[in-house]
C-alpha cells in the first residue's frame, strides 16, 4: 500500500513554460480508438481495485455450489443430474447480474466529476460508454470462465463440446452487452450509485428467478408458466443450454439476437440522449 503524500515537489516554471509552448494538436482519434482507450481505463481500474472482481469470482462459486448441493438432490434426484441442468442457467444468472455494475460505474463517474472532463473532450460521444462496456466484457468473460471451470470440476459434461460452450458464452456476452444499455440509461437518470443498484436489483431478481434457470417450468402453475415463457431470460437460458448440450435450434439463437438488437436499438439512443442532456 502506498501512503498518502502531503508534500509535493515545487512547480518547475521553466519546464512548465516549455510544456505550454507546444500547441501541437494531434488528429482527432476515431471512434474505435477512443472506445478502446476507455476500455483500457476499465482494465486499469480492475488492476488497481481488484476487490471489484469479488462479484465475478466469489458469487458465481457460491451460487453454483449452493444450488447444486442444497437443491440438486431434491429437484432432480441427484446433484450430478441437476448440475447438467443448472450450470448453463447459473452462468446466465451470474453474468446478467453483473451487468448492473456498468450503470453503477457510470453513475460513480458522474458523481465524481471525471464525467465532465470526458464530456468536454472532442471525442466520439458514445466512446465513454462503449469503452466501459468493452471493459465489462472482460469481467463477463472472467465470470463465465469461473462458472464453466467450476462446473467441469464438479462433473458438468456439456454434450456440445468446447465449441458449444464457447458459442454459448459468446451469445451470452452479446446479450449482456445489449442489456447493459438499460443500466447505462438508469445510471444517467438516478442520482446515486446505490439507487442505481437498487433499481437494477428490482428488475433483475424477478427476471432471473421467474425463469427456467433453476427449475423446469413444467412443474409451475399455468399462469406462472405464461410469465416464465414471456421472460427474455428464459429464452436466453434455453439458447445457452441448447448450445452447451448440442440441442440448440436456429430459432432459439435468433430470438436472443433479436432481443439483443431491440435492446440496443431502444436503450443506446436513449442513453446517448440522456448523456448529452445531463447537466
Amino acid at each position, binding site marked *: 500500500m502506498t501512503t498518502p503524500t502531503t508534500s*509535493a*515537489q515545487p512547480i518547475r516554471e521553466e519546464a512548465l513554460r516549455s*510544456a505550454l509552448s507546444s500547441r501541437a494538436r494531434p488528429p482527432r482519434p476515431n471512434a474505435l480508438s477512443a472506445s478502446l482507450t476507455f476500455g483500457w481505463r476499465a482494465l486499469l481500474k480492475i488492476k488497481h481495485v481488484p476487490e471489484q472482481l469479488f462479484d465475478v469470482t466469489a458469487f458465481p462459486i457460491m451460487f453454483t455450489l449452493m444450488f447444486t448441493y442444497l437443491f440438486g438432490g431434491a429437484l432432480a434426484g441427484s446433484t450430478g443430474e441437476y448440475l447438467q441442468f443448472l450450470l448453463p442457467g447459473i452462468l446466465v444468472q451470474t453474468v446478467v447480474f453483473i451487468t448492473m455494475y456498468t450503470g453503477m460505474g457510470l453513475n460513480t463517474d458522474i458523481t465524481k466529476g*471525471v464525467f465532465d*472532463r470526458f*464530456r468536454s473532450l472532442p471525442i466520439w460521444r458514445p466512446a465513454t460508454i462503449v469503452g466501459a462496456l468493452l471493459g465489462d466484457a472482460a469481467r463477463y468473460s472472467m465470470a463465465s470462465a469461473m462458472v464453466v471451470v467450476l462446473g467441469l470440476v464438479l462433473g458438468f459434461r456439456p454434450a456440445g463440446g468446447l465449441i458449444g460452450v464457447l458459442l454459448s458464452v459468446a451469445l451470452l456476452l452479446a446479450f449482456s452487452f445489449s442489456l447493459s444499455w438499460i443500466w447505462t440509461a438508469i445510471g444517467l437518470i438516478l442520482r446515486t450509485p446505490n439507487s442505481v443498484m437498487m433499481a437494477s436489483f428490482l428488475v433483475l431478481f424477478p427476471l432471473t428467478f421467474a425463469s427456467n434457470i433453476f427449475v423446469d417450468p413444467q412443474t409451475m402453475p399455468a399462469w406462472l408458466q405464461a410469465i416464465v415463457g414471456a421472460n427474455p431470460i428464459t429464452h436466453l437460458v434455453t439458447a445457452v443450454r441448447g448450445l452447451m448440450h448440442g440441442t440448440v435450434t436456429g430459432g432459439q439463437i435468433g430470438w436472443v439476437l433479436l432481443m439483443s438488437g431491440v435492446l440496443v436499438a431502444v436503450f443506446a439512443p436513449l442513453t446517448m440522449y440522456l448523456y448529452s442532456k445531463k447537466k
Partner: protein
Amino acid sequence: MSARSGSVEGAGGLAIFAEGLVRRFGDNVAVDGVDLKVAVSEIYGFLGPNGAGKTTTIRMLATLLRPDSGTARIFGHDVVREADEVRSRVSLTGQFASIDEDLTGLENLVLIARLLGHSRAQSRARASELLDAFGLSEAANRQVKNYSGGMQRRLDIAASIVVTPDLIFLDEPTAGLDPRSRNQVWDIVRALAAGGTTVLLTTQYLDEADQLADRIAVIDHGKVIAEGTPGELKASVGSGALHVRLRDYENRPEAERLLSQALGVPMLLESDPAALSARVSDPERVAHALAELARSGVAVTDFALGQPSLDEVFLALTGRPAENDDAEDEEDAA
C-alpha cells in the same frame, strides 16, 4: 502570438462572446441574462458568492449545458451548434477534481492524451513532461486518491493542458487549498496566460481576482452587476476599508459625524455598537480623520485599513451583503 492569429474569427478578436445567456433549473433562474466579452489571451475573473451563477455560466460556455436562451460563441464558434469545434479549443477544470482517483497520475494524463489523439509514445512523453513541470514526477505512479488536495488540483490542471488549449475554464481553482498551494496555482495560471492561453476563472475572493485577472465581472443572482479592470472595480468601492472600534459605544454618533466629514464618505454602522467602517481611497485622509477623532476626545481602541473584502464590494454594488445561496450547488449535484 502569430500562431494564434488564425484562431480569431467572426467575433472581432474575442475568445468569448456571450449575449443574454439564461439558464433555469426548475423555478430557479441560475443565470439571468449574462453578457460577456473576453479578449484573446486575457485572464478574466468571474467573481461572486456561491450560487451566483458562475459555474452554470462556465458549463454553458464549455458546452456541458445548453442555454435556455441567449447565444455564446467561443473563438467565433457557437457553443450549441458547433459544440465539437468549441470542445477542441477549450479545456475545463471543474470545481471538483475531474480526474480518476483509482488511477495513477501518469495513467490519468496518458488516458487524456490518448483520447486527444496522441500516439502511445507521444502520450507517455507528454504525460511525463507535464508531471515534471507540475512537480508531480515522484508521485507519477501513485494512485491519485493518495495525493494531497494541492497535488490533485495540479494534476487536474495538468490534465486540462495535455493539449495546450486556446481557452481554459478554471472553476474556483484554489478553493480549499492552503496558501502555498494556492500560490502555486496562481503561478500556473500566469504561465498559461503568458503562453497565450485565454483564461476564464471563477473565484469567491476579490484578492485572487485582483492578483490574477486583467478584467473582472462581478456576478450575483445570475446577473453581471459590475465589470471592469480590478482598478476600476476597486475605485468604484473605494480602494480600501477603514474599520474603527471605539472605547465607548455612546460616542458612535459623534464619531460617525466627525469621520464622515473628514473622509467625505458616509459611515457604515456595524452590528457591533462600538464599531463603524467606511470605504476610503486615500490613506492620508484616513490619518487626518483619525487625528480629528483624537482631537475631539473620542477614544479609539482599534482601527484597521485594508483591502475591501468581497462582502464590501457586494455591499457597495448591491446595497446588501453577499450571501451564499446553495441553490446552484444543489443543481450541480443533481
